[in-house]
């Protein structure tokens, strides 16, 4: 079973708009990561946030983490058509390397 749950399941926006995806999880974690998957491809790592961090930025990406609510959000600013993909959050409890992925959000950015 999957620990993380992303919402929305699907999101469609216009190019230039911001996209926000949320992830909730059930148990305590050590790190939370976001990955992107283009259709028919493997996953690509986007950003990692540790349990003692609240916010992290990488280019047009902004990730927040609220451990009290067991939730995280991924914001993509000024979206582009090339951002069209599925986005997954993944949690781990630390050294055990057992990564648990959510079901993903399918983002469509329309030109």
């Amino acid at each position: 079973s999957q620990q993380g749950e992303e919402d929305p399941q699907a999101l469609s926006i216009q190019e230039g708009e911001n996209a926000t995806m949320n992830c909730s999880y059930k148990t305590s974690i050590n790190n939370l990561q976001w990955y992107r998957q283009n259709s028919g491809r493997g996953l690509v790592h986007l950003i990692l946030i540790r349990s003692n961090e609240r916010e992290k930025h990488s280019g047009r990406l902004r990730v927040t983490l609220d451990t009290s609510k067991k939730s995280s959000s991924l914001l993509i600013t000024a979206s582009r058509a090339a951002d069209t993909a599925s986005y997954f959050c993944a949690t781990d409890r630390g050294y055990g390397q057992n990564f648990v992925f959510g079901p993903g959000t399918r983002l469509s950015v329309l030109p």
Partner: protein
Amino acid sequence: GAGVSQSPRYKVAKRGQDVALRCDPISGHVSLFWYQQALGQGPEFLTYFQNEAQLDKSGLPSDRFFAERPEGSVSTLKIQRTQQEDSAVYLCASNEGPAYNEQFFGPGTRLTVL
């Protein structure tokens, strides 16, 4: 250097056949992971190797699934007596070791069981 590669990219099997899926991790990567991804779902963890040692196989769905990494490099996921519910994309990932969190994924093998 080259990324994670997997072969074959596509495999069609008749129900009851055995299949073997191969993963070539990034050279020097200590950790290797196998995931199963059903259509429209996130990857589900199957098993984890650190070098040649299989440290976690809690995600393998049945004893028909078997994975090995005998020399701590290439890994093979074998599925015996395939069933239709085994149809999925099988993803392999590797990273430099347990202190590293980012995983590098291969393109996956799409298995279709008829």
